[in-house]
């Protein structure tokens, strides 16, 4: 016999449905990472003997860099049977850090993560990334073979936390066709003064071509300006976190940047610097060595690169990203993550990565491998960054250790360059903001390192 649904039953069903929907909704944020959630509370050994350890790797590269990164993961997975890395693209360096911050709250963290120069330190302070020395010993990783300038940036109190992987320096890029047309010597300018003499020959008076391009704040103008500040004898901050944005030499560098666009009008700021360079809208720029492979393969003209120009000094920062192991992962996964790091930065693979991207080989021994020697002979541009490396240094605390310091300085530079505001006033405000941002870092540092 058929029976119609009573009102009460209907309501009961609705309640049940509402409850289910609610449960589903509650479950969704954690759903994706439920495995990891359990893993963090699980005992150290989670897999059966003989089975593969699966780990998650969060990376930040797209385009040709992303392809190279995925190729690295693929070749690791094919090289052995113990560990399987699942690669997950997370967006830019900033977006990766954002997602990692959220993942730490939601307990859905990856096992190995690519963190940029400005982000790893905050996660170190928060205890979110592991000390790597014991893990390195277990996989027989020799830290002595890493480029010391790059490796030491990731060391705190003698302990390694951040292993160099996609490490770069800025280079001076120039369009050789425009250079030849202007009758200039085929090299980067040695000083900014020399470049100032060259610019009238590079600029097109109808505004269709500038001699030089600056990136905007989001594209890390504060990283490139770091080198320029040093060239002018200034700095962003002292090692003890005293901010020096109003140092006369720092201001002199800012005034120079403003003049290039506002007064002398030979440079422009661009939202898409690489595209403008490739399209011939700018004749030269400073950009990461990591962009070299991509730019050379897209350019319709011969690309020249050189050391950054000098002013009173030479100045050039290191940059880019390194790999870290997430401290919440169980011991077995941490070890697996370390195996991947050792693989991706091995003598051979550091070379593979450097050749396919333009990033610097992070291992000393890589430079002597026959493949690398041959590659440098055929592509001298790729060697420029390696030659420049001994003269580079780690960046000032204001940009890399103060949270968001990079963007605070970058926005200040936008105001100076785009709005034409007085450098002294803008950098005074930036100085205050950085000093404020440094306070919690100093507290955390004291708590962490004593």
């Amino acid at each position, binding site marked *: 016999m058929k029976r119609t649904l009573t009102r009460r039953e209907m309501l009961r069903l609705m309640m049940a449905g509402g409850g289910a929907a*609610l449960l589903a909704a509650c479950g969704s944020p954690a759903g994706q990472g439920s495995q990891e959630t359990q893993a963090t509370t699980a005992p150290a050994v989670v897999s059966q003997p003989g089975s593969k350890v699966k780990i998650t790797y969060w990376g930040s590269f797209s385009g040709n860099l992303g392809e190279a990164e995925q190729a690295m993961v693929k070749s690791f997975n094919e090289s052995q049977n113990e560990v399987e890395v699942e690669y997950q693209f997370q967006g830019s360096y900033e977006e990766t850090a954002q997602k990692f*911050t959220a993942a730490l709250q939601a307990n859905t963290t990856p096992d190995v993560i690519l963190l940029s120069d400005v982000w790893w330190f905050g996660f170190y302070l928060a205890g979110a990334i592991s000390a790597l020395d014991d893990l390195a010993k277990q996989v027989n990783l020799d830290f002595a073979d890493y480029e010391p300038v790059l490796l030491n940036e990731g060391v705190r109190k003698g302990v390694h936390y951040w292993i160099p992987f996609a490490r770069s320096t800025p280079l001076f890029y120039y369009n050789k066709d425009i250079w030849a047309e202007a009758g200039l010597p085929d090299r980067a300018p040695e000083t900014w003064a020399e470049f100032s003499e060259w610019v009238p020959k590079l600029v097109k008076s109808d505004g269709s071509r500038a001699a030089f391009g600056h990136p905007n704040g989001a594209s890390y103008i504060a990283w490139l300006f770091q080198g320029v500040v040093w060239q002018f004898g200034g700095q962003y901050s002292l090692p003890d976190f005293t901010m020096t944005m109003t140092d006369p030499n720092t201001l002199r560098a800012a005034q120079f940047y403003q003049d290039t666009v506002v007064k002398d009008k030979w440079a422009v700021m661009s939202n898409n610097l690489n595209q403008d360079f490739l399209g011939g809208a700018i004749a030269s720029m400073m950009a990461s060595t990591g962009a070299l492979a991509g730019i050379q393969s897209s350019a319709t003209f011969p690309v020249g690169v050189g050391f950054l120009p000098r002013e009173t000094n030479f100045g050039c920062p290191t940059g880019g990203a390194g790999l870290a192991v997430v401290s919440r992962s169980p011991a077995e996964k941490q070890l697996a993550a370390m195996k991947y790091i050792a693989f991706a930065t091995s003598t051979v693979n550091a070379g593979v990565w450097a050749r396919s991207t333009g990033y610097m080989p992070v291992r000393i021994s890589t430079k002597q491998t026959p493949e690398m020697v041959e590659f440098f002979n055929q592509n001298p541009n790729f060697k420029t960054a390696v030659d420049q490396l001994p003269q580079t240094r780690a960046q000032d605390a204001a940009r890399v250790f103060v949270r*968001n310091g990079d963007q605070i300085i970058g926005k200040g530079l936008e105001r100076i360059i785009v709005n034409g505001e007085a450098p002294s006033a803008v950098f005074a405000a930036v100085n205050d903001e950085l000093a404020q941002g440094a306070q919690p870092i100093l507290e955390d540092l004291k708590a962490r390192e004593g």
Partner: protein
Amino acid sequence: MATYTPHQDYHPKTSRREHREWLLFVLFIGPNLFLFSVFTYWPLLYNAYLSMVRWDFLRPAMPFVGLQNYISAFSDPQFWNIIWQTATFTVWSVGLTLIIGLMLALLLNQPLQFRNTARAVVFAPVVISGAVVAVVWSYIFDPRYGLIDQLLGFFGLDSPNWLIDSFWAMPAVIIVYVWKNIGYAVVIYLAGLQNIPRELYDAARVDGAGAWDRFWHVTLPGLSPVAFFLSVTSILTCFQSFDIIRVLTNGGPASATTTLVFHLYELGFVSYDAGKAGVVAIVLFLIMLALTMIQIRYVERQVTYG
């Protein structure tokens, strides 16, 4: 909820019925209320709490700082600048959407050839993702090879450097926002136009009213409920718009296109300052609440319902 008082005991029948009605009410409203509490009211309250702590999303400690976040926000000239920019963005975007939308709707209400195609074209941007729209427009705005530069070139004009110029970046964002959202206004206006009774036009014609008079005295009053609805929804969505700004200008250059919502994102997810982001969220919430109340109170009165 009904409670038993001695008075109610004298009317047991009514009381039981009331009781049952209440139960039914709770059964119907309960699930929704519960979901709202968990996903809307609780975050709102939690945000109010966050606005009074200092927290960077990472440290375990969340020291309570009282109103300090509010004081530092309100004493920052940049904050007021951003409020002003948000107002500019909203007034221009909503105003242009309402006015141009009306003109387009009047045009598309005429018996023209290819009218349906034209309507579809006008509506198309509404269903395209804002991020995609912003990417396409970033090429259109390019001062060297963009479409706008080419168009201005016909008149011998130079394109401004839209997205890198603090003055032109906001107009650029407004143009894209209006282009993207105008189709929605047009569709709503068209529905409104079709609801105005023919007889009113006939009567007006008999009384000797010209096209302008008919528009002014029949069409416009007839459309006022629709315009009211549109102004409310447009202002609310405009205040919350994020995607186009994020992709087109990223709030720049030099923060020239940073609106409250974008500022909230920057403070929360770029600077990792939960406290200050909480303050902005509260301010945004109060502004939206106030706007809604004003609109309901004052605008509704002057609306002619057809």
